[in-house]
């Protein structure tokens, strides 16, 4: 099996699907000749040409608005928003249009597209190149939200996302774009949406994480093991609809849970996960569920590593939860 980083794995998935399905078109800023600012689409312009790998004008609203039109026409656009932080000019099209098309037309129309965008910290990008806006989209009925942590999952989840009938926001954790390396199956390979992955089984504390924070959770689990705490680490992979069964099964076993995410704490996905655990596994809880997250501040530049829920903040939360 070839070793790839996440950028290569996503590129591989896009190439494969574009060869397989002529309806797939890519569009975005700088994705053509230069292959995207993170080089995710490198080489695709040469293979598929200007009609399928389209450098657009600088307008996220225009990109998503026209992509919806293309999707209505029967193409499967996979637009790239250069940074998740710049998705907001298209927010209206995503919230008011994309998410509601099937519903509001009584099923007559649906707009199938996958919006790829890099999210999260890790590149010293300050507020405007670091945010994790998943909760703002999960809160909108009709959108699926995916965030892979490994190259293999990036490939398999992207292929599943493109083939799924619903619109998908595909968040790529830029911190591990190149740092995450691993075996990636060759050829067609699908990781089903809506299925979390128990990356490390354990019996004492459940840690739920995704994207770049999975690696921090695994690091924290290792450090906790040195203190005699056996963590189970769940990689959510699909953020919405969430794989509640895997979480609840784990929490019923451990009775203790720590949720980790980069986005601000209040009304983050962690809040929803804790609420669901309270509703579904309250009597199994041995300790109050904990959240280790970004703070409710704009994403800071200099103090980035203080803001991020890195393993140094996860370990004490795990220890506290385990000893409650």
């Amino acid at each position: 099996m070839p070793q790839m980083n996440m950028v290569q794995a996503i590129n591989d998935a896009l190439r494969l699907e574009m060869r397989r399905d002529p309806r797939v078109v890519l569009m975005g800023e700088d994705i053509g000749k230069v292959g995207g600012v993170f080089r995710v689409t490198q080489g695709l312009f040469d293979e598929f040409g200007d009609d399928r790998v389209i450098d657009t004008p600088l307008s996220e609203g225009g990109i998503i608005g026209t992509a919806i039109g293309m999707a209505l026409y029967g193409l499967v656009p996979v637009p790239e928003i250069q940074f998740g932080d710049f998705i907001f000019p298209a927010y209206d099209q995503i919230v008011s249009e994309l998410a509601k098309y099937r519903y509001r037309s009584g099923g007559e129309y649906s707009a199938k597209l996958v919006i790829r965008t890099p999210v999260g910290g890790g590149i010293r990008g300050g507020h405007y190149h670091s945010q994790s806006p998943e909760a703002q989209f999960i809160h909108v009925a009709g959108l699926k939200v995916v965030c892979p942590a490994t190259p293999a999952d990036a490939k398999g989840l992207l292929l599943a996302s493109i083939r799924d009938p619903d619109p998908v926001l595909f968040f790529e954790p830029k911190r591990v774009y190149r740092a995450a390396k691993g075996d990636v199956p060759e050829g067609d390979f699908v990781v089903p949406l809506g299925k979390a992955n128990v990356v490390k089984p354990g019996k004492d504390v459940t840690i739920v994480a995704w994207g770049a924070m999975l690696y921090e959770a695994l690091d924290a689990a290792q450090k906790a093991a040195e203190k005699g705490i056996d963590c189970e680490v769940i990689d959510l992979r699909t953020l919405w609809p969430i794989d509640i069964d895997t979480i609840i099964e784990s929490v019923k076993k451990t009775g203790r849970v720590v949720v980790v995410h980069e986005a601000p704490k209040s009304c983050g996905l962690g809040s929803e996960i804790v609420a669901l655990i309270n509703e579904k596994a309250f009597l199994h809880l041995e300790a109050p569920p904990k959240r280790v997250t970004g703070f409710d501040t704009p994403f800071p530049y200099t103090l980035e590593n203080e803001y991020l829920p890195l393993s140094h903040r996860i370990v004490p939360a795990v220890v506290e939860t385990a000893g409650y």
Partner: protein
Amino acid sequence: MSSMPAPKPAQPPAHLEDGHDTSNKAQVSTAHRPGTNGVDTSTLAVGPAVARHPGDTKSADVVKCLRDDGSLDPRTDPNLSSEEVVALYEAMLRTRILDDRLVTLQRQGRIGFHIGSLGEEAAILGSAFAMRPQDWMFPCYREFGGALWRGMPLQRYVDNMFGNSNDPAKGRQMPDHYCYRKAKVTSISSPIGTQITQGVGFAWGAKIKHDDLVTMIYFGEGATSSNEFHNGMNFAGVFKTPAVFFCRNNGWAISVPTERQTASRTFAEKAVAYGMPGVRVDGNDLFAVIKVTREAVERAARGEGPTLIEAMTYRLSGHSTSDDPKAYRPDGTLDPWRAQDPLARLRKHLHKHHGWTEARDKDLEARVDAELREAVKIAEATPAPSLDSMFEEVFADLPWHLSEQKAELVNGPRAKGHGH
């Protein structure tokens, strides 16, 4: 402004003597005339973009065909058959009658809302007529006449007004937010302008696939201030998509007049900045509308790219049934536009050239009333959408959290007044 002054052609500034509209000058209040307020504005372009007075449509750049005496200007005559003219007149009158009756139904509390097209029928039917069968309509919200023309059954439209289980939108949207795929009419949403970029993308998709179709994108002049207008025009210009931008300049965006939307002289001239032609047409002149829209469709189909059409018309009703226009627009100011009623103008032509009689108006009215009465009867007897349907089609399949919430609703107490 208590009453609309008749436009007096003012002396055009030298740099505008090349056939540009100068009648707008008459709309600029004296306080802003050069020299009267101590500021010399003579080097600035003439006043705001207006279709505040029908006299504005007499400007040389505005395409017209139907003359005051009911005859047609042969230079712009789209050469319709007698049957076509009569069919279009009937469709326009049907639209107007439906508008009137739907307002009544709203006043009676039987439907919640209506947003109509009183005064804009020629612009709407003329442009719909100019579309070819394979072309797609991206409506704003005043174009039900066009959707019916293209084959949406009246019953489906009325079902949408009642939000019942036969509504194409399954009762999930307000009245007048229908869709009808078979007639190539896309789904209407409320946010202003969003259909503009979508219509461009749809046309772009067709172009990529080398399919011969054109999208007809409708919006009001207020929407030209939205980001979507800019995005759509810009993308369409850059990628030469086969789209026609059909701007109904009806003078108002709810209570906000055209001069609050733009400082451009016309809406059509905005096209220049996007590298496409822009044309002003008398929007109350069915023949002129057909002429320019047909040309725009043909141009797009030839691969020559998009066109912006500004149909100069006037909203003779309030914005919707929720609006009382008397608060911002004295009724008397409408008189010059009432005199340019697109139906009255067309009727004159019909009387003269197609043997139309008043009796046929009455006959049509009776037919439309009967047809609507029946549709309303059926719509009112059709049950509300099921509780289950509230959770369907959010996603293609029902995810766990929605099936939980569905069970919670279905097994919980019922609200009053939703037909359950």
